[in-house]
């Protein structure tokens, strides 16, 4: 079973942190639609997340399905380790 490289875990944790910030900002912006700075911050983090996703997926494989992630060859979205196994 392929073992994940060490730097995968740091990158994954950072991706989780950015995801959390995006979730919190989304909830905040639902009630504060005019908050310009928060929207700027949201867009910065969205951009940052795209970069981080490439980094994580280069080591792990596709994170999401249905076109949200590129697939490797052969079709590998169902390869281990699964999210609860990493």
């Amino acid at each position, binding site marked *: 079973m392929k073992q994940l490289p060490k730097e995968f875990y740091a990158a994954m944790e*950072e991706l*989780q*942190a950015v995801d*959390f910030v995006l979730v919190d900002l989304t909830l*905040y912006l639902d009630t*504060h639609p005019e908050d310009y*700075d928060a929207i700027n911050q949201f867009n910065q983090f969205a951009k940052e997340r795209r970069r981080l996703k490439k980094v994580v997926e280069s080591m792990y494989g596709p994170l999401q399905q249905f076109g949200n992630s590129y697939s490797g060859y052969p079709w590998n979205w169902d390869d281990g380790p699964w999210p609860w196994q990493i």
Partner: protein
Amino acid sequence: MSTHRRVWYPYASPFDPCPPIKAKTYSTPPNLFLGFQPPNLEQFTPMQALRTGTLWKVFYDPWYSPYEAPREDDHS
């Protein structure tokens, strides 16, 4: 961060099997006192936010029990 701890005094019946607990306390979360969230509140770094469970410092409430010394090691 100061969780406003409130106290209430449960009724102790003379037929209670165990010694009565005279005062019980509970901590009230900060969002009760904030109402509509003002913009541009001070924020945690993403990594800290992941640990504390909130992005804004003012909402951070580790909800320590009264018997547990508030560990100030990790965050404000």
